[in-house]
């Protein structure tokens, strides 16, 4: 007699029959009927019609029957809320039952019924159960709070259940503690800032005690919770580590990995010379190795995490290479992960073994795996120099197998080897050329063409080879086309006499017959370069290429740090920060490893860092590349000259173009493995203009060439329409404040110095490949300055900094180049002050004081935007004559008047006046009416806009009123914000 009979197909009238059975008098028949109902439910049949009949069976002494009915209720209560109310009384009664099992069962089931009306009735029984004498009931109730929170978060807070739950962390029973932690963790996930799990040394101690005694699952919750704690010092850190280490021997791999997470994080705080540090490192290896003998699914997750651990602390597993050798019957997803880790662990000591293994893998059946193995051989060659020769010969052996995809993959990696070790292995080129015909994948074809072009002088028939590719030029993918174009130009520069025809052919194919803007642009650049100055062309096209780096696929250090804090979670499996994929990313906080003891520089704890960022109006990093295209056009690459008058249009264009060619071309041409740093600038928008030019190579001077490529659209826009922010009646911008820097008739110079906001992070390192920029604006001695701290959080040196602004509301532009004279080493910061002029191109921004900035260094170009306080723009001669003030005040229509309140300001009117004067807000007159001081003030913006203000200060009242009048009412809001900032500073 088995349950499989319930799986028979639905007969006609089955529901009817069940109904009859449910209402039967016989207990046994009833139970059998409920069982049938449950079975139908589990396979997804709809038996909700039986709701009233099943609920009728609820009042029974038979525990099994009760449980079955509860199961049914949980499934269908949602669809029949009114009927479900019928069950409430029984639940409430069961919560008072003398048997704790029944009490727990009732409160547990009630929590699973997601019907609002029932939830209301749940509160009282739940409150009792949370304080029940029986720990089994308490621990069930703890989870029930999480359930309730999921259904109605507000209710849980109002009823004070969260506090009760927090109290349960100190419960005497470890299981109750574990469940309370689990429930709080789940609730905390939807309230990222609620600080529900307030961890302090006392609670930590309680958790560590409970850790030893609770179930394996409880241990996972507690360990994950511990990982969020930041110990006060290295001694506390060590004592926690000591108490967590025994968990590494647990049979449950999730416990092991969570313990590894805690240890990896807290280890950061231990001084490296401590004996215990070394012991701990040794203890971490065996459990990680053991994880690899578990089921394949567990292995996969373990391997993804080991991949992170190996990058952060390679010393842990450096002797364990062999456990990552691939077994024949490993699932493919395990094989690929193991291969990745093998390469990371490859070193001079073990390279021979690794290569022998990789060669074995390259003859396996699975195509993906074979490809990755071949690629891995290439990576070994690049990583371990001593092995390069052996790797190359292994690859040659593989090419001899003539297996199509193996050959193609091998050629792609050999190209990289050439890049790393130039002029060493060129003897193999002949072998490679034999396989030219069998290449059908774009990447392999492109690699082969690159090799032919790069070594054209050593390949006798290079022209024939390239010509053969040229026949089907238009059918090739873009990658191959670009490569072919470059290769033929290289060939031409090396053997000009015999290849003139070929180069003509490819240039006309690229420029005239192609619709691809990238290809066409590159074609034109080459064409003009060749026709203008072949020597320069040679320098550019055949320039020496930088060697490629050893580890190309390392995770960026800040991301890696964050991922280490998330070991064992989904983030660690995807190698992405949780904010990148967790649904809705409910304010997931970025976690960072704690700084090690003694290193003072990381004194700013992660929390204060992020908090400051939030309160400070977070720097809006310009989102997507797509939106940027328009803005980019307006960015002129070179800073205008330092002198006052705006640069002549032609000079701006010229310099832009020079920079473009100098900085962009060499990388644009020689190498396709790394994206050129400034690809956008030669992109689509210019091409319509270019295509107007005649394709024949005329004698263009560099100036004209530059004009086409770089600046003209930008300039056209920049000098065209007047800025919309300014009414036409206003005078044109005054050219620089140099002549009349100080209003001599005005007041005492600068009593207090202009207001300058504290520095905030504009560009987080996460978004800029390790470059972090924080900064502020200040006005010093009449010059607006942008003061920045550049911090290098990447692993390589940063050089060649340059800065550029997008057009902005007040024409702010760098008045000189960015003065970063020395390279910035890893973990080094540098302070820069950049003087700004206000004579740049103007475009109204939203918000008005928004400034979009591009910063370039040797790595890439980064974009961010920041807002400057408008008070930076108040010029020193902003003091108006009394009469003029009065006349202007009357003249400006009342519609333009804006009134604001400044709250909680405890200055008297005189102090306020002198404070404001520091920022060039001049008080012209003061009137006192009925104990209220009225200050009349004026200020002038760099573009000549006057702003008039009336500030009312009442003695004893901390709230000020400001009325602003201005012909350009858009600025009022910003001015008001500055007022507030200036006064409260």
């Amino acid at each position, binding site marked *: 007699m088995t349950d499989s009979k319930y799986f028979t197909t639905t007969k006609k009238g089955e529901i009817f029959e069940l109904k009859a059975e449910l209402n039967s008098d016989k207990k046994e028949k009833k139970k059998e009927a409920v069982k049938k109902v449950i079975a139908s439910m589990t396979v997804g049949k709809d038996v909700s019609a039986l709701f009233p009949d099943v609920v009728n069976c609820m009042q029974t002494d038979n525990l*099994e029957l009760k449980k079955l009915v509860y199961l049914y209720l949980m499934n269908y209560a949602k669809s029949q809320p009114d009927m479900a109310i019928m069950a409430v009384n029984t639940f409430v009664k069961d919560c008072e039952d003398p048997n704790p099992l029944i009490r727990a069962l009732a409160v547990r089931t009630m929590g699973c019924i*997601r019907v609002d009306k029932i939830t209301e009735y749940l509160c009282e029984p739940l409150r009792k159960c949370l304080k029940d004498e029986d720990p089994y009931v308490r621990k069930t109730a703890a989870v029930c709070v999480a359930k309730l929170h999921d259904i109605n978060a507000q209710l849980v807070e109002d009823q004070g259940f969260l506090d009760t739950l927090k109290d349960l962390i100190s419960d005497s029973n470890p299981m109750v503690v574990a469940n309370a932690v689990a429930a709080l963790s*789940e609730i905390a996930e939807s309230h990222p800032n609620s600080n529900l799990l307030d961890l302090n040394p006392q609670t930590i101690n309680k958790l560590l005690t409970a850790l030893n005694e609770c179930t394996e699952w409880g241990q996972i919750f507690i360990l994950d919770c511990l990982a969020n704690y930041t110990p006060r010092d290295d001694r506390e850190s060590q004592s926690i580590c000591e108490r967590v280490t*025994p968990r590494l*021997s647990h049979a449950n791999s999730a416990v092991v*990995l969570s313990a590894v997470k805690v240890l990896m994080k807290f280890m950061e705080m231990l001084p490296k010379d401590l004996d215990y540090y070394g012991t701990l490192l040794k203890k971490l290896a065996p459990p990680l*190795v053991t994880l690899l003998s578990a089921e394949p*699914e567990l292995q996969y997750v373990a391997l993804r995490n080991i991949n992170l651990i190996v990058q952060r602390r390679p010393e842990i597993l450096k002797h364990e290479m062999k456990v990552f050798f691939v077994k024949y019957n490993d699932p493919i*997803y395990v094989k690929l992960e193991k291969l990745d880790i093998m390469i990371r662990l490859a070193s001079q000591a073990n390279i021979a073994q690794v290569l022998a293994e990789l060669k074995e893998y390259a003859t396996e059946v699975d195509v993906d795996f074979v490809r990755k193995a071949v690629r891995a051989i290439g990576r070994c060659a690049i990583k371990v120099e001593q092995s390069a020769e052996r790797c190359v010969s292994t690859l040659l052996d593989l090419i001899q*197998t003539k297996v199509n995809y193996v050959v193609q993959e091998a050629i792609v990696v050999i190209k990289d080897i050439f890049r790393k070790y130039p002029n060493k292995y060129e003897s193999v080129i002949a072998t490679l050329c034999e396989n030219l015909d069998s290449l059908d994948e774009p990447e392999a074809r492109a690699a082969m063409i690159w090799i032919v072009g790069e070594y054209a002088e050593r390949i006798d028939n290079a022209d024939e080879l390239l010509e053969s590719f040229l026949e089907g030029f238009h059918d090739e993918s873009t990658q191959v086309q670009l490569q072919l174009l470059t290769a033929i130009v290289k060939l031409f520069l090396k053997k000009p006499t015999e290849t003139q025809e070929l180069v003509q052919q490819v240039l006309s194919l690229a420029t005239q017959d192609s619709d691809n803007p990238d290809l066409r642009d590159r074609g034109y650049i080459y064409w003009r370069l060749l026709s203008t100055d072949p020597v320069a062309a040679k320098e550019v096209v055949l320039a020496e290429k930088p060697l490629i780096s050893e580890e190309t696929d390392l995770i960026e250090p800040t991301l890696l740090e964050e991922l280490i804090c998330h070991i064992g979670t989904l983030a660690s499996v995807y190698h992405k920060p949780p904010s990148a994929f967790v649904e809705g990313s409910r304010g997931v906080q970025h976690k960072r490893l704690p700084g090690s003891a003694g290193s003072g520089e990381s004194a700013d704890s992660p929390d204060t860092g992020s908090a400051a960022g939030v309160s400070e109006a977070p720097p809006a990093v310009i989102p997507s590349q797509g939106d940027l295209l328009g803005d980019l056009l307006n960015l002129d690459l070179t800073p205008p000259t330092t002198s006052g008058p705006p640069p002549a249009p032609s000079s701006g264009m010229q310099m832009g173009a020079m920079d473009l060619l100098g900085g962009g071309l060499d990388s644009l041409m020689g190498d396709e493995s790394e994206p050129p740093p400034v690809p956008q600038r030669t992109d689509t928008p210019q091409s319509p203009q270019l295509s107007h030019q005649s394709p024949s190579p005329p004698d263009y001077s560099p100036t004209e060439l530059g004009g086409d490529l770089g600046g003209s659209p930008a300039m056209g826009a920049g000098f065209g329409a007047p800025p919309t922010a300014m009414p036409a009646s206003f005078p044109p911008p005054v050219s620089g404040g140099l002549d009349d820097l100080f209003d001599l008739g005005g007041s005492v110079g600068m009593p207090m110095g202009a207001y300058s906001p504290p520095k905030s992070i504009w560009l987080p390192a996460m978004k800029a490949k390790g470059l972090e920029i924080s900064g502020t604006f200040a006005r010093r001695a009449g010059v607006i300055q942008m003061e920045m701290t550049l911090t290098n959080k990447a692993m390589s040196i940063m050089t060649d900094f340059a800065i550029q602004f997008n057009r902005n509301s007040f024409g702010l532009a760098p008045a000189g180049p960015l003065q970063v004279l020395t390279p910035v080493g890893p973990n080094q910061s540098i302070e820069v002050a950049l003087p700004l002029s206000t004579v740049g191109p103007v475009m109204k921004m939203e918000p008005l004081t928004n400034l979009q900035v591009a910063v370039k260094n040797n790595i890439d170009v980064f974009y961010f935007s920041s807002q400057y306080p408008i008070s930076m723009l108040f010029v020193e001669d902003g003091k108006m004559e009394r009469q003029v003030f009065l006349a202007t005040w009357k003249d400006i229509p009342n519609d333009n008047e804006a009134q604001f309140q400044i709250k909680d300001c405890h200055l008297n009117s005189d102090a306020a006046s002198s404070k404001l004067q520091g920022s060039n807000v001049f008080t012209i007159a003061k009137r006192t009416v009925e104990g209220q001081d009225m200050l009349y003030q004026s200020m002038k913006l760099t573009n000549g806009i006057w702003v008039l203000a009336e500030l009312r200060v009442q003695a004893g009242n901390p709230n000020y009123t400001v009325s602003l009048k201005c012909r350009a009412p858009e600025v009022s809001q910003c001015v008001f914000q500055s007022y507030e900032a200036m006064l409260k500073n």
Partner: protein
Amino acid sequence: MIHSLFLINHTGDIFLEKHWKSVIGRSVCDYFFEAREKAVEPENVPPVLQTPHHYLISIYRGKLFFLSVIQTEVPPLFVIEFLHRVADTIQDYFGECSEGVIKDNVVTVYELLEEMLDNGFPLATESNVLKEMIRPPTILRSVVNTLTGASNVGDTLPTGQLSNVPWRRVGVKYTNNEAYFDVIEEIDAILDKSGTTVFAEIQGVIEACVRLTGMPDLTLSFMNPRLLDDVSFHPCVRFKRWESERVLSFIPPDGNFTLMNYHVSSQNLVAIPVYVKQSISFFETGPCGRLDITIGPKQTMGKTVEGLMVTIHMPKAVLSANLTATQGTYTYDLATKVLVWDIGKLNPQKLPNLKGSLTTQAGTPKPEDNPSLNIDLKIQQLAISGLKVSRLDMYGEKYKPFKGVKYLTKAGKFQIYIYMFIFLENLMSYLLFEWLQCVLKHSI
């Protein structure tokens, strides 16, 4: 936490679903089916999948997929461990974990799932605790139940869940008190073409079957505990005593359980019990090849190797095999290209040999993928690492139990890379082949 569970059979039918929070529609499984389709082999389905609103974490056990749906950040290992625990529990209750068995006991399975998770939080996963609340079916009980109307559900509080030893219930009574331990070791090894060990390690496990009255406190000690590189214990084992004295001290769960897993890694010398002389060759021009395999004992510590079986995944181009075995039988599966040679007991006086010709498809290029050779074997009464239990002491109870320890060594993932020769011409090659055979015999 864990939101829902779907059980999916080999053909892709969902035959059981359980939701611990709100109901999630079956359509969420479509993402899984897509991945299943792509992976070709069911073993190759990635265990963690991301869909627009959920994560799908699955395991593949007994030709069934256990697919769980989660919505928030949950440690994936936690979910995978739990799914394996579900499969273990089903196995424990019903003797096997298969679609048929689950369907036969669907209501019990459903009750079990309900007890194992509450709102996605694990509740009771210890088989002792579960068995107290939901009794496993026995033939006798189901007969009695039908006669008396009694139920399978226990009505007592699962005492073990709260005590300091949650794995053991109180009041256990036996007339025969016995404690048996099985030390089982699996050799994972990769040997290269010349028979040299590329990689070898031993995965060991101590399975216990303890039926003792009351609350016994056991201490198990080894002759040579320092052999063990890494250990993981059942929660009952006191870690402190292991750290300080290298003995296993514990209050055992009742019945069958895994006391400890251990690992003897490649740093120590791992004995390889057999050697294999093998060669497979193909002729560049003709549609045939040759195969010759001999197996002999290497380091068996004087014990007999049993259950010997050789599995070879042949290159795709091999159509059929015409072989003779001096011992045992062989089969060649044309569809999967797997050659299985079931040898049985290894007789050191008369080494088993498998020899003959292979047919490849005429006109196709020579095979390009290397075959691989996997070995299965068993050695009774031997732990190949040399681990030995020295004694078992019992405290806390007065009676004398029966004690016993058994040892068994098995091949785990035991794999040998194969020689594959490609010859240019038939006659020359035959001579060359014979010559190579000679070389090989001497080299090993």
